[in-house]
C-alpha cells in the first residue's frame, strides 16, 4: 500500500501539535483535574523545557479561515476539524477516521495539505487556512473541483472535498505530474466508492487547465 501522507505538524514544526499536547497532558493530569471547574481560560504551569500548558478550560482562539478571521473560545484539546465543523459550521472537511488516515478532512494550512483532525485549533492560529469552501468562494467552480465534475471523480462525495483540496495542494507542488507521482502523492486520501480512476484523470485535466490559465487557480 502506498501512502504518502500530507504533512503532519509534528515534523519539526514550531508550536504545539496534537501529539505534543497529549504528551504534555500526561504530565499535567493532576493540574487538569483541579482546574476542571475553572470557568475562565487558564494556563497551567508547565515543567521546565516542556511545551506551555493551556486549559483544560476554554481559551480564546483566533483562526484565519478562507481569509476570514474567526474568534472562538475552545478547550485546547479541540482539533481544527472539530472547531470548523462543530463551532463554525464549516462542514466541507469531513470527520471520518479522526486519526490521520483517510484524508477526508484535508485543508491547506500555510501552503501545505494537512489533516485537520491532526491539528489542534490552538496550533492553527496565525496560519492561513484554506478549505474546500475557500477554493470555491467565487461564482465559478475552482478548476480542480470542475475537473472532478468533468471526470466523474466522485460518487457519494463524502471524500470529495478533502480529495479536491489534496489534489489542489499536490498540483501546486507538482504542476506537471506524472501518473506515478499522482499515485504516490495522493495516496494519503481514501475513497470508499472507488473513484480513483476519475480522480487521476481529473488531476491531469486540472494540471492542463491551470497551465492554460483558463480559470483562477
Amino acid at each position, binding site marked *: 500500500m502506498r501512502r504518502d501522507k500530507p504533512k503532519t505538524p509534528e515534523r519539526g514544526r514550531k508550536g504545539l501539535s496534537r501529539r505534543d499536547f497529549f504528551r504534555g497532558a500526561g504530565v499535567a493530569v493532576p493540574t487538569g483535574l483541579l482546574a476542571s471547574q475553572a470557568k475562565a481560560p487558564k494556563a497551567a504551569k508547565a515543567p521546565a523545557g516542556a511545551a506551555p500548558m493551556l486549559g483544560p478550560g476554554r481559551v480564546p482562539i483566533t483562526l484565519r479561515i478562507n481569509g476570514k478571521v474567526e474568534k472562538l473560545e475552545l478547550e485546547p484539546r479541540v482539533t481544527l476539524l472539530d472547531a470548523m465543523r*462543530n463551532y463554525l459550521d464549516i*462542514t466541507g472537511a469531513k470527520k471520518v477516521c*479522526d486519526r490521520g488516515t483517510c484524508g477526508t478532512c484535508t485543508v491547506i494550512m500555510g501552503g501545505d495539505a494537512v489533516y485537520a483532525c491532526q491539528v489542534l485549533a490552538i496550533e492553527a492560529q496565525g496560519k492561513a487556512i484554506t478549505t474546500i469552501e475557500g477554493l470555491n468562494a467565487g461564482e465559478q467552480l475552482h478548476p480542480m473541483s470542475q475537473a472532478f465534475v468533468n471526470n*466523474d471523480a466522485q460518487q457519494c*462525495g463524502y471524500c*470529495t*472535498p478533502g480529495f479536491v483540496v489534496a489534489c489542489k495542494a499536490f498540483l501546486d507542488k507538482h504542476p506537471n505530474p506524472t501518473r506515478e507521482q499522482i499515485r504516490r502523492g495522493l495516496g494519503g*486520501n481514501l475513497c*470508499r466508492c472507488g473513484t*480513483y480512476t476519475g480522480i487521476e484523470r481529473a488531476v491531469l485535466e486540472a494540471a492542463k487547465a491551470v497551465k492554460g490559465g483558463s480559470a483562477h487557480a
Partner: protein
Amino acid sequence: MPEYKWPEADKRSLIGKRHSRADGPVKSSGKAKYSSDISRPGMLHVLAVRCPYAHARVTSIDTSEAERMPGVKMVQVVVEPGKPNAETQWFLDHVALVAAETEEQAEDAVRKVKVQYERLPHLVTEYDRTAAGARARPQDAATTGDPDTAFREADVVSEGEYGARFISHCTLEPHGSVTEWKDGRLTAYLPTQALSGSVSQFASPLEVPNTNVRVICNHIGGAFGSKFGPDKWDIQAARMAKAAGRPMRYFTERNAELIVSGGRPSDFATVRIAAKKDGTIIGWQSDAWGTVGPSDRGAAPPLPYVFRKIPNIRTRYTGVGTNTGPSRAWRAPNHPQGCLLTMCALDDCAARLNMDPLQFFLKNISLVQGGRPEDYSTELLKCAEMIDWKKNWHARGDKTPGPIKRGLGLSIHTWGGLGHACQCDVKIHPDGSAEVTMGTQDLGTGTRTVMLVTLAETFGLPLNAVKLNIGDSDYPPGGASGGSTTVGGASTATRRGALDALEQLFQKVAPALGVPPDQLEAVNGKIQVKGNPAKSLAWKQACAKIGTNPIVARGACQAQAARKEKLIDADVGGAQMADVSVDIETGVVTLNKFVAAQDCGLIINLKTAESQMYGAMTMGVGYALYEERVMDQLTGRMLNNNMEFYKLAGLGDIGTIEVFMMTGKGYDERGVIGLGEPPVISPGAAISNAIANAIGVRVPHMPFTPDRVLAALEKGGVA
C-alpha cells in the same frame, strides 16, 4: 393514454450519452450538506457508552456522576440491568447514551458512567468450524440429480477449500442522525437508502402517527447496503430529543462504526467438482459455513454460483453463531462469496483438466442461469481481447525466472436488478419550467442525473431546463435503494409521469396547431406536428397555454407491468479478468490490469454507469487484497477497528481498470436494469484465479494478504 416505452435509438438525444452528474458541483465544492453536517439551533451532542466485552451481562449502571458533569443534559440507559436486554452480544455494543452541550463534554461524561459487567463465554471466530462446537448449526441441505453416480463416473474430480473472511461496510459517513421535534412532529436527518420507508420505522417504535415523521436525506456518504431504516440508536436519540426538547446529533464513532453497523458475512466451503475429460462439468458438491453473528440463521451463499444447471448437485450450509456485530446487506448480498467459492473451484478444476479456464468456461456456458448464456460468452471474449488473454495467459505457475510472477484470472457473475415500486410527481409550469419530485435518495450512483435525463429526453428539452426534488419523505414515495433497483424504478416512474404530463400539454396545445393531440411530439425544445418542425410552438409558448395552474401527473413504476412494457428488465451478466503480479519473496500482490465487460439493458447515463464499474472494481481490489475484520478470540475484541489497519484500497493500489459496457441492439431493447451490484461480485474470484495462475497454487482464504500468499507457497507452487 400514451404508449409507455423508451424512444427508439435514432430518436434519443440524451439517453445513453455521457452526462456529468447533476450534483457534481455541490459535492466537489463542499457545499453539499450531508446528514452528519446538519447543525440545528440548540442541538446537543450524543455519544455512547460501549461494552468492552464480546458477551456480557450488565449488572449495574451508575450514571449519577456523569449527570453532574459540565454541559451534560441527559444520560439515557438503554441496556437495563435485570431486564431481558441486559445481555450484550458483541464488542462495543452500546449500553447508554450521553447528551451534552458539546462533543468534548459528552466525551468526558461517557467516561464517568460506571457500568458493572458479568462476563459470559464468547465465540468471535468461525473460520475453524470444528472450534465452534454447538454454535455451528447445520442449516440447509439440498440435492438435485444423482451426485454420487456423477462423482463415480467422473474422469476428473477436483477438490479444494475456499473462503471469504468477514468485511465491514466502512462507509465514510458514519451511521447516525440528527433528530428534532417541533409541534409534535419529528424531523430526522438520516443517511438512508430507504427514505420513504424510514418514516414508519421511526413512527412505530416512537408511537406517533406516520404523519408526524419527516425524514430528510439530501446526500449520503456511502451506504452499500448498511443504511436502510433508522438504527436502534437513532430511535433512542429521537426519544431523547423529545424528552429534552432539544435536537440531538448522534453519529457512531469510527472505532465502533467498523463493528456495530454491519458487515458482509464470511463464507467458507469445501468444494468438489466432477468433470469429463473433455471439460464437461457433471457434478458439484459443496459443504459451506459462515458466521451468522448473533442471529439464529444466516443466508447461505448461492452455490454453485451462476452455473446453476450443473446436472448433479449436493449442497450443505452450516451457520456459526458468533458474538460479533450483525451482518447487513453488503453490496450484492452473498454473491461475492458464492462467486469466489464457485469460480475458484471451477478454475482449479480447469487446472486439473489441463485446460485453459477461458475455454473451460465457454465450454460449460450453457449451464448458466440468470443472464443469457450468449452474453456471458460475448463478455468473456471481449475481456479476453482487452487483457490480451491469448498472449498473456500461461498454464499454472509463471515459469519465468525472478521473484515476480505474473498471472491472469477470470470470473463471471449475475444479478437481478429489476426496478422497484415508486412514485413521482411530474409538473409542467405555465412559464415552461418543469420538475420531477420523488421521495427517493441518490447514494452517489447517479439517481438524480438519471431522472433528469429521462425527464429532459421526454420533453425534448436540454438537461439544464428541468429540475428535480428528492431527499424528503414528504414527497411521493420512492423505493428503497437496494438490489440495484433504483435506476429502473426511478427512470420508469419519471418516464411514465412525464409522458402523462406531456399528453395533457398536447391537449392544451393541439387547437393552436390545428391537429389532434396524438399528432404532436416534443422535440428540440418545441411542441410540433409529428415530423413537421415548421408547424410548431416553442416549448415556452406551448406552456403559456396551460392556464394558471401547472400540469401535474403522477408517474409510477409497477415492476411487473413495467417489465411487460419493456421499460425495465432483470438478470444481467458480466465477466471480469485480472492481471496480477505476485512477489514470491514478500507475498505482495499487485494489480497490473483489471478489465470488465458488463450488460445492463438500456443505459440512461453512460458516464455514471461506467463510474459504477470503476468504483465496484476498485472496491473489489480492496476486499480481495486488504479488507478483513480481525477478531481476537482471547479478548473477544476487533483488533483493527480503525482505518489504518482496516485497509481500503488507495489510489496507487488498483492498477489500470478498463470497462466495456454492452450496449446497442440486443441490449437496449430489454429496458433499464440495475448496475450497482453486478460489477462488485467477480473481483475476488478473478483476482484469486490470477494469483493461482501466477504462483501455481491456490491461496484459499480472501483477502490475499502477504502472509496467506507465503503460507500457500510453503505448500507448493513456483517457490
